[in-house]
């Protein structure tokens, strides 16, 4: 009897305690709701007050939008933004790999606009535009007018159909092309080819929907043509979809390997992401990175580095260890917020790259450090050259390349071609190039320009890729890891026939 009484008493006390806690919890919630209501009212009152009293007010919806923008700014999240429909579409399109514009990369040099690159599957590719084409008119307007905007921007040209007149060096005549603007998928693999007989090269330009499958197909194609090792170029890759990055890294690791973990704000344990589809766990692999390698591209590089699967070559990466999500607020407005931080398999959280004097911190640290890992522009002229000098060397290169095309010079062996071009260009060297060094640089720049024009005209993308190894320090360093001592384009530097003083061949190390 006493026992049951005690049980009743203790049960009653328990119920009272539970009721107290439940009540206090409900009370706390009520207080919080009241606070939120008060804060909401504060915002509403502030907007009303601005509308009623401010000298220069704005419509309510605009004031609200700006209030949200201000709030996001105060979060100090550099990636947070309120997205309007067009920005949202653009952001979504960039992640989905939706192609924009005509799919052309133009090069404006000394008043001449030429095509530097045509994106595969783009309207320009279907329209027959080729790298190296010089654009004369667009819709009968001289290109000098630049579509009414900078020539490098073809993304928002007004018309759906562009009638482009080009001058094509390989035929020595003009061609008229019709490019119809349409929806297209921009490929993630922007360059692919063989650097040597056994080293394949792939450049992953962005990580969008389907990138991992695209990478898989491209590696398969390279292996079919004899690649026994792979150089994966992630330079300039600003990332994209996290899931695609995880899938892409997983291709080179055993199934079930940890690729990255997401550490969200809730204090819960990091959410691991494992490789799903494994393909090449033993293929020798080297990865090129630079200061613009970011986000998902860093996930790939970080996972393959931490699992000791690949050497990284280049410079410290960007260091974007954050993940964003987009939340739809209204049918028109969306909110992009940083919601998590990702960790490498080794548990490293990346921080932004910082340069202080000679010291560089943050990002992923490469295994082979290169002074300047950026992809060089073959058309860049030395800074100290005057415009006249640049024009002269460009004209000389044009002239030499036209002669080579007309006479059908072979591009192999490259040293012979360089030597012949050099002789032509040297004949045109200006008197201002007084010293042997100055003349050598001038002729060297001219040979480089002429060769690129020849390769563009001949559509020799593989040859162009191999040739670019010479001036691309990171590519060279990466190739040297996979194939040490590989003689780039199997060429001993040509003996310059234009300079009698150098005909005495130096007796240095020789080459194949």
């Amino acid at each position, binding site marked *: 009897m006493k026992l049951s009484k005690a049980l009743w008493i203790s049960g009653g006390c328990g119920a009272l305690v539970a009721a107290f806690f439940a009540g206090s919890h409900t009370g706390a919630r009520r207080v919080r709701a009241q606070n939120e209501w008060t804060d909401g009212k504060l915002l509403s009152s502030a907007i009303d007050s601005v509308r009623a009293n401010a000298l220069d007010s704005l419509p309510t919806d605009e004031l609200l939008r700006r209030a949200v923008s201000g709030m996001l700014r105060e979060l100090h999240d550099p990636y947070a933004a309120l997205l309007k429909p067009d920005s949202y579409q653009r952001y979504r399109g960039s992640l989905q790999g939706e192609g924009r514009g005509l799919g052309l990369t133009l090069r404006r040099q000394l008043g001449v606009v030429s095509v530097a690159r045509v994106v595969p599957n783009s309207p320009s590719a279907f329209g027959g535009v080729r790298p190296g084409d010089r654009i004369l008119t667009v819709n009968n307007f001289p290109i000098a007018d630049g579509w009414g905007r900078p020539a490098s921007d073809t993304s928002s040209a007004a018309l759906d159909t562009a009638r482009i007149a080009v001058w094509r060096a390989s035929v020595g005549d003009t061609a008229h092309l019709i490019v119809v603007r349409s929806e297209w998928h921009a490929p993630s693999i922007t360059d692919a080819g063989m650097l040597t007989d056994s080293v394949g090269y792939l450049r992953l330009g962005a990580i969008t929907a389907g990138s991992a499958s695209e990478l898989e197909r491209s590696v398969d194609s390279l292996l079919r043509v004899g690649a026994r090792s792979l150089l994966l170029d992630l330079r300039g890759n600003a990332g994209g979809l996290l899931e695609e990055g995880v899938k892409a890294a997983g291709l080179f690791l055993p199934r079930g390997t940890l690729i990255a973990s997401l550490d969200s704000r809730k204090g819960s344990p990091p959410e691991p992401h494992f490789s799903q589809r494994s393909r090449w766990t033993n293929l020798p692999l080297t990865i090129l990175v630079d200061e613009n390698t970011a986000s998902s591209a860093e996930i790939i590089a970080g996972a393959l580095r931490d699992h000791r699967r690949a050497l990284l070559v280049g410079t410290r990466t960007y260091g974007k260890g954050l993940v964003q999500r987009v939340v739809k607020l209204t049918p028109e407005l969306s909110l992009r917020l940083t919601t998590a931080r990702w960790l490498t398999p080794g548990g490293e959280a990346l921080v932004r790259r910082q340069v202080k004097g000679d010291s560089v911190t943050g990002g992923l640290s490469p295994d082979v450090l290169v002074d300047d890992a950026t992809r060089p522009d073959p058309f860049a002229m030395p800074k100290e050259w005057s415009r006249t000098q640049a024009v002269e060397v460009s004209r000389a290169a044009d002239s030499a390349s036209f002669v080579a095309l007309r006479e059908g010079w072979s591009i192999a062996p490259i040293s012979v071609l360089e030597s012949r071009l050099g002789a032509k260009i040297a004949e045109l060297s200006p008197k201002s190039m007084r010293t042997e060094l100055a003349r050598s640089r001038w002729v060297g720049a001219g040979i*480089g320009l002429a060769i690129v024009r020849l390769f563009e005209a001949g559509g020799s993308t593989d040859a162009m890729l191999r040739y670019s190894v010479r001036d691309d320090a990171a590519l060279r360093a990466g190739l040297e890891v996979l194939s040490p001592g590989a003689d780039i384009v199997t060429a*001993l530097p040509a003996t*310059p026939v234009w300079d009698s003083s*150098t005909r005495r061949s130096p007796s*240095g190390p020789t080459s194949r």
Partner: protein
Amino acid sequence: MGFINSAIAVGADVTLNRVLSVASAVAIACSLAVSPTVGSAQRGMASSQVPVKDSVATRTMLRLDRWLISRYRGAQLLPDSVGGQRLVAAYASISRVESVVNGGRYDTLFAVHFAEHASGPALSAAGSARLVAPTGSASGVLARIVARRPFRAPRSPLARNHNESDWRYGWAYLTVVPRTGRVTPAATFRGWLMLEASR
């Protein structure tokens, strides 16, 4: 073949590098077979820490070694067993200038070339090299080779010490060229080739 040091962290402190570099000469003479792990490398160095005169040559070699170690993580420095002799083989890649440092009267150029095997050819120590543009146009500029260092660097992150195919063998050079005025910055020579100048 003895490894002078190994797996030194990038940015390792100067003192350690100095000890390693200074000790390297002694290590070569003693033909020490130093294990390539950090601990054993340091043990190997400890046995050879005898006072060595801090000459200009030593300082230059130290500078080259520091550049090499910071550039190729996991690189192991090897003794220059051929001394001042020149080795020219029929098959070799050509040295390229990889880094440049502007100086007052002289600019410093660091150059490297690799081979698959240890017995790769080299430019002669204390010799001269002709600078040639990547396209093959000779410049007439001669670089003086001040120091050279054979080394090996890993070809994969899991390079096993005794597996030759996991490594590549290189020669690194520290060379100087006289400044030719403000018109030609030293950075011009980055990526240029170095061919042995005829004697």
